[in-house]
């Protein structure tokens, strides 16, 4: 699975994207964030406040109960500030 990070989430985690093999037990976007937050202090810091983490799967906004498939493109980012 390809995971993309943007804005301060990218800066805090220290990379803009990575390929991960979906571990057993990770079925939803909420599971994925919980698992990512356990991978190191940079992830834990970036994902500490779930209320300000937006999630897109295959470039559409989804909630934390969205089911994941192996080939998905998942993006995590802060609330948007364009315009």
């Amino acid at each position, binding site marked *: 699975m390809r995971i993309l990070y943007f804005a*301060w989430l990218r800066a805090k985690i220290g990379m803009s994207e990575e390929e991960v093999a979906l571990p057993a037990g990770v079925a939803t976007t909420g599971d994925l964030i919980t698992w990512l937050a356990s991978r190191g202090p940079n992830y834990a810091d970036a994902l500490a406040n779930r209320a300000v983490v937006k999630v897109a799967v295959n470039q559409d906004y989804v909630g934390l109960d969205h089911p994941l498939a192996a080939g998905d493109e998942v993006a995590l*980012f802060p609330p*948007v*500030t*364009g*315009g």
Partner: protein
Amino acid sequence: MAIRVQAEDFDVGAELAALTAGNTAIGGVASFVGLVRDIAPGSQTGGDAVGAMTLEHYPGMTERQLAAIEAEARARWPLDAVLIIHRHGRLLPGDRIVLAACASAHRAAAFEACWFLMDWLKTKAPFWKQEETAEGSRWVAAKDEDDAAAARWSTRTP
């Protein structure tokens, strides 16, 4: 469908002229141009001076979300033409960031749809602003009032 995400500046007059060219059923065009401000809320009295702003975006999803916003506007109002241009990269105070324009037979649809485009764009299009100030670079925080402005239009969601 007229969505453009680009680093380059745009010519507002030329864009609006092209938008209506060849369609004499159009009675009016409403447009909004967003600019980089030189002052942002901050620690200094009256705000912090902004030297530059860098806009990051999510290529692919940005175009997809803007196209969805345009489609929603076309479903709600009788529009003859719609244009959204949004820049990315490093911009300076006074630079143009975004152009939203709607053409219709009558002004109400054009004005309302243009306002709608900007309200939804600000809360749905994946762009992030980073300001450069004397105290360093910082990410612009999303504003509650932008969410409230977008929610005004939320009788339906795409």
